[in-house]
């Protein structure tokens, strides 16, 4: 039996090998994943399970302070997961099921956080709702303490809920209205339909969103650093260990501890939640959803979502106004000094470096995502599932952990004997000024989005089309280029847009990799926010948002069709 299956997999590989472009694609993907994901993670495991490390675990797990920090981390993840998913659900429900005005505006507000740098919301929240906040104090005279758990939940939920929104919106749109109609015809009222039909169908989406938000929230290092107060989490401890002491051992150990909940949650999501799926989409759902008529529900939900939309508008409005203001909250005189400082100072190098590294990583991530999706969906070979799993680690592993892994793996050249196998890729004296490690990190973080979008759209395309191409004499590469790629073009586009936005706005994974030759905008923004120069931070944010929008616009023009982008983005996450 075993020899039979061995024989079969050998045959599969022989078939793969006979098609050299296919083989090349596979080799490139495997080498990439090995260098950019597996090797750094192995390095963390190596350091994290060394003899010195064991003493640290003992210390951490016996210290009430550290146990508290671990609990804080999990608590933050759970609450942000719940609040963010609820926000996403409300926005999606209003968008899909309610007939109310201003839906376009609400949609836009829900999408805004995806292109915004990590601190925009936190900084704006401090100047609006903090102890000296424009609204809380100067308008209402309340000294509202934003530092700590409450502030973090507010800021993280508002920054991350887009994921849940896109996910759930896509799912609600795909639900067949016939099911609702059937329930209604059987005499169920709207509430019963919602409770017994709609909600159960959305459970996988809700659980999936919750879990993704959980991982993102516990991986965030930046917001707890500037807004944590006395609420300490693991990710910010990792940052202090590295930046304050360059203690890579403590960094690796804390990273491993952080990795446990993230990976658990990822595995649960992948192998349990996805199996609970009730949905089988066979083409476009027929008919239209009936809008909810009950005025109380309709206008109640509208009011809630509208209020949150206005809050988001206000926060981002503050970023823009603040960028042109001398001292927001104290002196509202118009000024261009913030932009002057950012552009004349070292901001311009950071902008150039970050945009360039993002631009390089974007096509690589887009193509890799599509190739892996194609290999996973269309080709059969042993290890296919492993390939998919490893590629998805880019999103399941918290950015902070990946960053530490890169530091350990790439800061020194990899040598066997006296031969340099791989020169140093990270750090100030690395090859190409440390650009390569950062680009790799960007790619790794972006591939999963393109991959999921690619898998989703390939599964809807009949393989017969590709088989016809092969029958007519085209090889794999021609088929992929001429048949597959055009068919999954919207997914490819989604992958590109998402990659670029994600690279430009990411911080945790690359903050330890910045060098004098490779300056990162988000790290500069962290400096400005931490040092309290909010005007400069706002100016940076405005420029960053502008750059991302400009490139997305350019991609729209060149790659074309916005069709299905939002939907695919939803699936991608």
């Amino acid at each position, binding site marked *: 039996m075993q020899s039979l299956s061995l024989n079969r997999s050998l045959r599969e590989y022989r078939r793969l090998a006979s098609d050299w472009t296919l083989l090349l694609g596979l080799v490139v993907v495997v080498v990439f994943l090995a260098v950019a994901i597996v090797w750094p993670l192995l390095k963390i495991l190596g350091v994290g399970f060394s003899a010195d490390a064991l003493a640290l675990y003992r210390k951490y797990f016996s210290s009430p302070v550290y146990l508290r920090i671990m609990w804080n981390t999990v608590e933050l993840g759970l609450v942000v997961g719940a609040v963010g998913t609820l926000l996403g659900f409300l926005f999606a429900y209003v968008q899909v099921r309610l007939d109310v005005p201003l839906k376009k505006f609400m949609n836009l507000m829900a999408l805004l956080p995806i292109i915004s740098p990590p601190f925009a919301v936190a900084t704006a929240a401090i100047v609006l709702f903090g102890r000296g906040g424009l609204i809380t104090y100067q308008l209402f005279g309340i000294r509202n303490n934003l530092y700590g758990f409450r502030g973090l939940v507010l800021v993280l939920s508002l920054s991350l809920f887009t994921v849940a929104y896109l996910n759930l919106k896509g799912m609600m749109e795909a639900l067949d209205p016939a099911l609702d109609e059937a329930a209604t015809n059987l005499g169920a009222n709207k509430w019963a339909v919602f409770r017994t039909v709609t909600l159960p169908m959305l459970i996988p989406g809700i659980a999936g969103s919750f879990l993704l938000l959980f991982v993102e929230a516990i991986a965030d290092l930046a917001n707890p650093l500037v807004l944590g*107060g006395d609420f300490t989490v693991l990710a910010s401890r990792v940052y202090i260990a590295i930046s*304050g002491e360059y203690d890579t051992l403590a960094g690796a150990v804390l990273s491993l501890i952080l990795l446990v909940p993230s990976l658990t949650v990822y595995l649960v999501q992948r192998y349990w939640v996805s199996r609970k799926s009730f949905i089988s989409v066979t083409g476009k759902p027929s008919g239209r959803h009936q809008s909810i008529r009950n005025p109380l529900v309709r206008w109640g939900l509208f009011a809630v979502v509208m209020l949150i939309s206005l809050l988001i508008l206000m926060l981002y409005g503050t970023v823009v106004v603040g960028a042109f203001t001398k001292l927001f909250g104290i002196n509202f005189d118009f000024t261009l000094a913030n932009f002057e400082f950012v552009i004349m100072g070292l901001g311009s190098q950071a902008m150039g470096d970050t945009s*360039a590294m993002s631009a390089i990583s974007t096509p690589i991530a887009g193509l890799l995502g599509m190739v892996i999706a194609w290999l996973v969906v269309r080709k059969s070979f042993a290890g296919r599932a492993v390939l998919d799993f490893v590629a998805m680690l880019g999103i399941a592993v918290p950015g902070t952990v990946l960053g530490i892994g890169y530091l350990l793996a790439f800061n020194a050249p990899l040598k066997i004997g006296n031969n340099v196998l791989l020169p140093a890729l990270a750090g100030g004296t690395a090859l190409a000024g440390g650009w390569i490690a950062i680009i790799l990190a960007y790619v790794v973080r972006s591939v999963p989005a393109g991959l999921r979008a690619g898998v989703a759209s390939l599964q809807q395309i009949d393989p017969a089309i590709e088989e016809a191409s092969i029958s007519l004499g085209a090889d794999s590469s021609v088929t992929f280029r001429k048949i597959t790629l055009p068919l999954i073009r919207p997914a490819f586009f989604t992958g590109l847009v998402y990659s670029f936005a994600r690279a430009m706005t990411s911080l945790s994974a690359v903050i330890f990799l910045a060098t004098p*030759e490779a300056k990162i905008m988000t790290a500069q923004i962290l400096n400005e926010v931490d040092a*309290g120069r909010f005007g400069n931070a706002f100016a940076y944010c405005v420029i960053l948002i502008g750059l991302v929008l400009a490139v997305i616009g350019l991609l729209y023009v*060149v790659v074309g069709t916005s069709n299905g982008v939002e939907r695919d983005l939803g699936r991608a996450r």
Partner: protein
Amino acid sequence: MRGYVKVFVFLVVIMATVLSGCKTQPTEQAKPAVGGKLTVLCTPQEDWCVALTQKFQADTGIETNYVRLSSGESVARLRAGKDNPEFDVWFGGPADGYMVAKNEGLLEPYVSPNAAVIPDALKDKDGYWTGIYVGALGFCSNKKVLDSLGLPVPTSWQDLLDPKYKGQIAMAHPATSGTAFTAFWTVVTLNNYDIDAAFTYYKSLHNNILQYTKTGSAPGPMAGRGEIATAIIFSHDCVKYQEEGMTDLVISFPKEGTGYEIGGVGIVKGAKNPDAAKLWIDYVLTAKTQELAATVKSFQLPTNPDAKVPEKSVKLADVKLVDYNFTKSAEAKKGITERFDAEIAPAPKE
């Protein structure tokens, strides 16, 4: 298909632009051109780093780049890059950090001809670092917030322990910030070098701390915006924020005595551009360069006796200073920051 040609062209153009951009950097670095390039590790306020590196580049033609890191972070980075340093020269930040770096063999001695005018007390006897500015630590408080809490302007370290200050004080984390370490060592000095007594003090103070920031000066704007009542920062940073429009801020000093910093400058051991680094040190020790600081509202006292002292600067003669021993503080620094990070910073508040 035509769409794909377009995509391809688009991507190629992007890659080409980008590659041409990044190619110039490594190749120039490879050229051992004398005075071609300089990478500065810069610890003072960012705008000073910008002004100084740009002026230096304009005056010398040396392409000057910098990274801003706080004092503790700087030593950590230098330690990490010990075998293959990415920086040529370290500028600014308290001398304690320079002493630590010197003891760990991270600095290269250099006695600049321009250092002759600098008083002996303000430079390392072996030439590993030279003082470029001096400034005293102080309390930077928001008068309005103090009033609303019913508190007078603090004039003693003990004042800050008043429970009314709960969540109303901020300082930086001593592991990353030299400012915060100066504050810690000041309390050590006031307790006759009893480090445990200083820990007892900071454990009580911890209950009143809102947040430990990364950068030493960061609590200043928090006070300026009314987020907190009092920031423990260098007084010259507080003057800077006042000048920048945070008009509710008031400066005060502890009557028991306060610490001070000697901002240093030193060459990184194994620097790739040692000649440019030496030139940088010569340059920053001149009276003219030191006067540049005030133009970007950095009001530290210049170490060069010929440099004009800015009117706004806090004069040391007006402040009671502790006898700050930089050699002792450097020896104890690592132990203290690690202990602070383990015992105080992450601890819950009572």
